[in-house]
């Protein structure tokens, strides 16, 4: 399952809902304001790091760049993808859910 988290974890419960439902082997992709979850030193670093034990974590780099966040400000366990990479992730998982 591809989990697309697009809402800021500081504003909505998207991330916490997602983390409640993920299964081993799932993929989480942070996009739009969701990318604030993978910012180094943020409140959600630990949550994402725990999830990375069982899931692969990606973020949409055009969305971090649009928000002035550089790649060295992102937690290292999250891997960057561009829109083409987003398409590939959508192909790799038979189903997706947007939180």
């Amino acid at each position: 399952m591809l989990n697309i988290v697009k809402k800021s974890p500081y504003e909505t419960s998207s991330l916490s809902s997602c983390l409640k439902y993920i299964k081993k082997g799932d993929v989480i992709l942070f996009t739009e304001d969701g990318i604030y979850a993978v910012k180094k030193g943020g409140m959600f670093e630990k949550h994402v790091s725990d999830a990375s034990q069982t899931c692969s974590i990606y973020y949409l780099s055009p969305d971090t760049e649009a928000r002035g966040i550089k790649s060295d400000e992102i937690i290292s366990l999250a891997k960057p993808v561009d829109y083409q990479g987003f398409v590939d992730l959508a192909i790799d998982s038979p189903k997706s859910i947007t939180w």
Partner: protein
Amino acid sequence: MKFGILVKESPYNFQAFDSAYNFVIAAIKKGHEITGIFFYDDAVYAANKYLDPPQGERNIRLYMDDLKSKGVRLVVCVAAGKRRGLTNDTVSGSAEISGLGQLLELSIESDRLITF
């Protein structure tokens, strides 16, 4: 691979429309097929033919026309549209008004349905 796209959020409050647009362009570039984009809830605001933002501003209508010119079917939910004053008279020439059944068709026809 065939992708169906569902957009639910207003193009003036959220990034959903732009994200969907960028995803569709990337998928087409990679040789994939887009079975259609279904506009639901506040996303239907993108399909008003009278959209006329100041020059130099992001113009949703041009993005819609661009998608149409690339052969992407743009479907607007009739109920969501009617609630927001969108009718056959006000809908953009690039889009078509249809029922929620079209979303079901889209998800059946597509290998993947991605929600924005």
